[in-house]
């Protein structure tokens, strides 16, 4: 599911892109599967169709999707491999933000590392219950 929130740094089209990429990497969107039309996605997300169009354009430019006959868009064949590289970059962004957030509260690098480790351990324990 793609969720959009407007209060942060991230432009909407980026969020859409991220959402789609997430769905591809999670396997919700499979290769050669059709993406929702710009119209439908825009309506569903309640965002400007231009924004969706832009997201689709950039995804196409980046190779994740392709558009046939100027109408429907499909997940491209090699999307999964592309996702890998991209995901790493995304995660780096997420961690960057977490780190700067921690800095606001005066955490230094050692404290940050400690928190990350402890949370990972915690999640691993939980994750076994939830499964992937």
């Amino acid at each position, binding site marked *: 599911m793609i969720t959009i929130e407007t209060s942060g740094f991230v432009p909407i089209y980026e969020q859409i892109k991220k959402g789609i990429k997430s769905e591809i990497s999670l396997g919700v969107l499979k290769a050669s599967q059709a993406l929702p039309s710009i119209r439908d996605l825009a309506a569903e997300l309640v965002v*400007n169709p231009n924004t969706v169009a832009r997201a689709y354009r950039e995804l196409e430019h980046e190779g994740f999707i392709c558009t046939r006959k100027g109408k429907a868009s499909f997940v491209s064949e090699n999307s999964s491999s592309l996702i890998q590289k991209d995901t790493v970059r995304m995660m780096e962004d997420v961690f960057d933000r977490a780190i700067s957030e921690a800095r606001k509260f005066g955490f230094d690098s050692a404290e940050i590392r400690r928190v990350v480790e402890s949370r990972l351990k915690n999640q691993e324990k939980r994750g076994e219950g939830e499964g992937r």
Partner: protein
Amino acid sequence: MSELLKITDLSKSFGRHIVFSDLNMKLSPGKVYGLLGLNGEGKTTLIRILLGVIPADRGKIRYKDSAVSYRSAAYKEEVGYIPEDPFFFGGMTVGELLDFNAAFYRRWDGGRAEDLLKRFSLDKKARIKTLSRGMKLRLEMAVALAARPSLLVLDDPTSGLDVPTRHDFLQDIIRELADAGTTLLFSTHLVHELERIVDHLFILHRGRLILDEEHEAVKNSVRRVRLNFQKDPPQNLGIDGILVESRDGQWIEVIIYPWSDDKKKKLEGFSPALLDIEPLTLEEIFRSFVAG
């Protein structure tokens, strides 16, 4: 045609109260424009002038390269209007209102009107008086959209409606945008709704257009900066574009537009204990602009 609508030096006053003077605006086709402003500061007046409901005192309006005025009628066949408080002709039924309007618009699409009625669950025989506010809004939309407008002007249409209705309304608008590439001029004081769809922002404050900028650009150049000083904070930060400044002991919080690296460097030059830079939501941006 690069511009759908061009407004030059528009001025309007009611008696001695000047609503706005020398207003300049441009609308390009296919975009969503947001007209923000506090209540009673001229948004509705501007829209009424655009729709030829009232005349401007001075200034020019050009629609698709033709000059239009209070007396022009032809250009309005391509302009849809959803007003703030939809007032209708008392005892008319839904069907009669559509019929009435069909006579005016060259591009009227009867089939589309029927579709919209069905989609909005509007009963043709229902008297307008009996409709709820939300249904009246839908009816207005049906009328506006059935005429296949190139420009759709909405004047705070969703105020007073509950969230689900507003949500549905926006969805309908979006579908229209996607289908027809209609240009949208959306005036509202409910800014957060606009945030998801607006391309270009206008802020009308105290009779002047204090912001005329792409949404993204605005978002990228407004920042809230929080500084904390261990000693006394400086009296003057020495940068321009401070929209709002508030101090609390050793804390200074400023909202700055436009943000730049230069300004960042300057602030760092004060050696604050903490320098926190954040983006703002559109709502916060708007409030900052109209705070002054």
